[in-house]
């Protein structure tokens, strides 16, 4: 049996760990999977979270903002990270997702996805300081649906959803996410001028945002 060449062995050893996911990867995939599977499947695993992990993740959620959330996740012990991510998934999206779907449950055989029109009859805007974790869940849910609409090639629907987010949460904690998705949706619809104006406003206000690179690279970025 041909053994491993020493140079190749050294390379394999040096590269060890390079392909591992980081906590942000786990949290991102877990959230998405939780939405696809519904609340039950992943929520069970969250019971393995330590109380501290659960508290940290939930508190981070209540504070809002992806950087805050992720930083909080990074502070968890390695064994608690995934459990924390699962709690995060449950807190951030699963409950809201299930609740939304049951509210809008269609008759069998009809379109399952709630429409932006249906949603626009929803509650009036809430002041930022009156919202807790549930408000954030709704923000996340709206933007997740917008993102899904983009993935499925429906930028018009994505735009309707982010506009609904803007109406309901004008000072929402996920404003940056909203505008980023909005710019991309405008690009996809060929509304380049508007995308550029909104992108420029974003970059003036948040030049160091994690979204800035993406927006600069989009059709809303500076003319080259």
């Amino acid at each position: 049996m041909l053994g491993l060449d020493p140079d190749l062995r050294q390379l394999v050893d040096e590269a060890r760990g390079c392909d591992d996911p980081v906590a942000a990867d786990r949290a991102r995939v877990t959230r998405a999977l939780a939405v696809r599977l519904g609340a039950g499947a992943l929520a069970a695993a969250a019971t393995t979270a330590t109380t501290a992990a659960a508290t940290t993740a939930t508190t981070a959620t209540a504070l809002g903002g992806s950087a805050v959330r992720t930083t909080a996740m990074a502070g968890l012990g390695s064994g608690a990270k995934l459990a924390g991510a699962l709690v995060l998934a449950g807190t951030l999206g699963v409950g809201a997702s299930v609740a939304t779907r049951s509210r809008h449950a269609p008759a069998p055989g009809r379109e399952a996805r709630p429409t932006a029109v249906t949603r626009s009859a929803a509650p009036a805007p809430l002041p930022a300081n009156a919202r807790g974790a549930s408000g954030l869940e709704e923000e996340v849910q709206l933007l997740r649906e917008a993102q899904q609409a983009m993935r499925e090639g429906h930028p018009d629907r994505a735009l309707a959803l982010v506009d609904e987010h803007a109406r309901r949460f004008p000072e929402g904690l996920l404003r940056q996410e909203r505008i980023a998705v909005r710019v991309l949706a405008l690009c996809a619809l060929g509304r380049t001028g508007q995308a550029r104006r909104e992108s420029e406003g974003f970059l003036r206000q948040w030049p160091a945002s994690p979204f800035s690179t993406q927006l600069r690279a989009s059709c809303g970025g500076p003319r080259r």
Partner: protein
Amino acid sequence: MRLPNDPPPPADFGEVYRMHFDFAWRSARRLGVPDHALDDAVQETFMVVHRKLGEFEGRSSLKTWIFGIIRRVVRDHRPPARWQLAPPAMLDQIAEPVEDGPLHSAANAEAGRRLARLLDKLDDHKREVFVLVDLEEMTVPEAAEAIGANLNTVYARLRAARRALAEVLARERARERNLERCSG
């Protein structure tokens, strides 16, 4: 066949997910799924795991069973149009600015990139055997179980993979030494 050291298969999907997420992620990446498509591939893998977990009878190890799903997901989802075109940047991809993984040095990161480039030079059969045995440190019988091939086939693919990678690496190193000599 369940291996002697394998724990009994967990019946709970959350537990399976927790135990095997990292393995699924690493494997998809090492089998050639580009970074922008990893989320989809791993999600899809666990969607299948969730759907089929009830059918898992514990006759193989859970890890090799999951690898069997990963390799099918990777192959099913690898047409150029889907994997090679980056999707538009969206919320999930751009909302996680903090990395808290192992703090690799630049040298480690370069080793990771080099190894990934080398793996790209193998065909799927050799690649998956090398990934399982030399990177995941499975035994050859476990790898054979994971890919549904017989032992002799797996040994032959492993030998061929090791030889091919060693040759490519030796050529790369020779070229680098040449460049250093010429530029120095």
